């Protein structure tokens, strides 16, 4: 994926649209939780049961997992593996690509089946892709990188000095 994930922003209204969509997906599929992770390893959103694990670390590992599998796909002559499935004894996870920029990670247990999750993921990914494409186009149309105000930079620099200064 040339270019990687360019700078972008995730607005509150985007979150609400996605949240509604994923909530109904979780209801229909009986999965426990859905996480959206960008390809650089950052957690974008979590919907459903709040996970008890460290979701920041989880996001970085999920992105790495997906990227590594992408490379394996190209080595065997596939353009991508658009989804991955990891099966555990009680908990399983299903990962699916969304618009080549974001990964949908679904956690589920034995209250549902892989077949059901797979069918429902397919439908929700189509809708999510549409939303994310719109978001990226909107950002591209503004033709500028995101800019933070100078006051933010000043405060962040002070915080960096405070936090790392005497170590």
């Amino acid at each position, binding site marked *: 994926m040339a270019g990687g994930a360019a*700078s972008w922003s995730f607005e509150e209204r985007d979150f609400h649209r996605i949240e509604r969509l994923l909530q109904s997906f979780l209801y229909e599929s009986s999965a426990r939780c859905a996480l959206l992770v960008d390809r*650089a390893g*950052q957690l974008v959103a979590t919907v459903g049961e709040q996970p008890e694990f460290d979701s920041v*670390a989880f996001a970085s590992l999920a992105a790495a997992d997906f990227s590594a599998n992408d490379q394996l796909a190209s080595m065997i002559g596939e353009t991508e593996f658009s989804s991955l499935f990891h099966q555990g004894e009680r908990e399983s996870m299903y990962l699916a690509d969304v618009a080549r920029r974001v990964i949908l990670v679904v956690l589920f247990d034995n209250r549902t089946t892989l077949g059901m999750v797979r069918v429902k993921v397919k439908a929700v990914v189509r809708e999510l892709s549409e939303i994310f494409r719109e978001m990226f186009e909107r950002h591209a149309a503004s033709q500028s990188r995101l800019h933070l105000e*100078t006051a*933010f930079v000043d405060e962040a620099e002070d915080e*960096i000095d405070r936090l790392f*200064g005497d170590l």
Partner: protein
Amino acid sequence: MSMINYASREINCKIVYYGPGLCGKTTNLEYIYEKVAPNTRGKLISLATETERTLFFDFLPVDLGSIRGFKTRFHLYTVPGQVYYNASRKLILKGVDGVVFVADSQVERLDANVESMHNLYENLAEYGLDLREIPFVIQYNKRDLPNISSIQELETQLNPDRVEYHEAVGTRGIGVFDTLKAVSKLVIKSLS
């Protein structure tokens, strides 16, 4: 590149420690993990071989706290330094906001440093990025060892654009936070 999440009011920036095998990238992260207050950092994740060589990456999130209402966090990554892990190295650079090149100051590692620096340029180019245009800091590590190149020699070989550099002894933490401070400030500035 960084994403501003207005929904969760978070800003996450990705900083990658790059350099040849055994130059001290993981040591940098381990020292940071050990020294920053536990409530400002997450878990240190290491995907390493049985002999503790980095296989895929190390990952350490460090929280800057809330800045003007935004929870600001640096995601620190290392890459595997050994030459044959290039596919993994390239993956870790995806979405990078800032780079630290950790050079091994020992004379016999000079060629390995140069090769790794070229590899960094090449891998970034595949993402359409140019090292001269992104926040970039060099750390000359292992300055306590007897058989080291002079800073002048290292600068000539590795730093033609004269970016900021720091001398370090990673195992004792010398220069580790100077390097982190320098790159994180550059990353924050690049967002404005």
